[in-house]
């Protein structure tokens, strides 16, 4: 008998090998290459060996570039706005709808539909809805006697329109998680508060919300990380415009690389975006371990 469990010492590595090989070739190596490229100047159409080493020049250029800072601002505004709106709306709806409703599973199915369809299709849908001549939204406003809104054509409004599309698509994510958390709460805690004379409002504020806070924090962080991945919806809706008003970092990377053809700079940009996401991921891990340790105490 080799060991009590019969486990072969090489087995874990054999099980891991195919996934590790794909991840090394398709993720790890490209990211290392991205770091390498960010210190070089390279143009499409020439072999990468002909790239010229420029040290920190790409990063220095980026940090001095107004378009970069505009893009950082747009990204931060977009990410914070969608997370705050989605969390507030999602949690509020979950609190309102935490009842013995019939047909919950059908409604939940309907709510996840927007999340399941392609972001590119979400972009199409909203570009049509926002159309100022024949789009349904403009007609709705006209029917109500309200003035038309330059949804995508005004720099101030475009970012709002893009945020609305994301809120439409992703609020249900927070709602479903919050509702699941509420319905998993120990009945005893709420019962006890009631017996002590707490009003419904007090129960919500002091018992329910603190108890579901860890789940909401994790969900919000997941949404925040996802917000930095958004590209398609904005690409279809505005292509980053008017001007740079909706040019989030993902889109800025794409344009820098494949429109302006500055691949070294685009790589430097990619690495900065990766750094932001990395920091957020570390926060996520901390939030989850905090949640786990709290759960352990209960």
């Amino acid at each position: 008998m080799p060991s009590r469990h019969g486990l072969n010492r090489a087995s874990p590595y054999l099980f891991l090998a195919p996934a590790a090989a794909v991840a090394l070739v398709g993720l790890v190596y490209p990211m290392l290459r991205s770091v390498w490229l960010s210190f070089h100047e390279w143009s499409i159409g020439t072999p990468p060996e002909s790239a010229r080493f420029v040290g920190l020049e790409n990063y220095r250029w980026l940090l001095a570039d107004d378009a970069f800072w505009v893009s950082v601002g747009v990204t931060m505004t977009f990410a914070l706005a969608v997370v705050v709106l989605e969390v507030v709306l999602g949690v509020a709806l979950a609190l309102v709808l935490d009842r013995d409703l019939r047909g919950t599973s059908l409604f939940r199915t309907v709510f996840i539909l927007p999340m399941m369809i392609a972001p590119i299709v979400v972009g199409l849908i909203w570009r049509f809805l926002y159309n100022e001549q024949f789009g349904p939204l403009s007609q709705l406003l006209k029917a109500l006697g309200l003035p038309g809104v330059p949804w995508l054509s005004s720099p101030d409004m475009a970012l709002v329109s893009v945020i609305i599309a994301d809120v439409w698509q992703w609020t249900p994510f927070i709602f479903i998680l919050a509702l699941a958390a509420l319905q998993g709460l120990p009945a005893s805690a709420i019962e006890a508060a009631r017996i002590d004379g707490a009003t419904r409002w007090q129960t919500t504020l002091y018992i329910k919300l603190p108890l579901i806070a860890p789940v909401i924090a994790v969900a919000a962080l997941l949404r925040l990380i996802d917000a930095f991945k958004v590209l398609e919806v904005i690409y279809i809706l505005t292509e980053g415009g008017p001007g740079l008003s909706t040019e989030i970092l993902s889109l800025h990377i794409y344009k820098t690389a494949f429109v302006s053809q500055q691949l070294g700079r685009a790589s430097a940009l990619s690495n900065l975006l990766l750094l932001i996401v990395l920091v957020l991921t570390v926060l996520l891990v901390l939030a989850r371990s905090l949640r786990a340790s709290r759960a352990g105490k209960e």
Partner: protein
Amino acid sequence: MSGTATTRRATPVSYAVIVALAILSLGPILVMIATSLKAKPEIFSGSFSLIFMPTLENYRAVLGDAQNARYLTNSLIVATVSTGLTLIFGCMAAYAIVRFRFFGRDVVSGGTLLMRMVPPAVLTVPVFMIWTYEFGFSNSLSGVILVYTAINLPFVIWILQSFIAQVPPALEEAARIDGANDFQVFFLVVLPMIKPGLAAAAIFTFRIAWNEFILALVLTNRFTRTMPVKVSLFINEHNIEWGQIMAIGTLIAIPPLVFTFLASRQIITGMTAGAVKG
């Protein structure tokens, strides 16, 4: 959802709220489907209506175009093959992480989470460079399949871990006592037990590969394009053919919509697994 002592009863107001939300969720999708079934004058008439004479004209135009048929096929090939590969490689890796104690396990486990967070835009430049100039993958479906498998693996590994952890170790033990080796235990005992997890993972993976746009845009040419890339080129033409665009949009939306109705339970489990479980 089963009424515990503290679950409040539903009121007409709560039903009104939930129905309004359902209309908000569905409405824009229905607008797309309705528009795809409309003749051109009706779309541009300036008065949107859900009552109209449906026509399949747009679908005939879209599917009658040999290019589109090719792009749809490309999308199907890329999504199906990459999903298959991701699932096989992913469940094996998840099994190793859950059931074995080995050197480097924490690195693998932590690395998986980190890689799940990488924005695809970050990969466009290096993958374009490597695929084109180092691997000779340029404009090939295999190149797209490889990168899709790579970006989906961390997610599949993550989601399957919780399902594998629930398989009773005693079952595996029993198989080992009967003389099964690690691979037999995995393929004959564990895999059949985690079918629901595999279904959830398959849906998520297929959906991401089927919907993916930016990497496909950078890595394909006019022969190897996928459907989302086609749409993006179509919409930036001067005279937007809204009827046909919405028909393509609907075609792209159909597989995810069908999956959602067939397996909403698994999808919600998968979605909540990340946040609710640890």
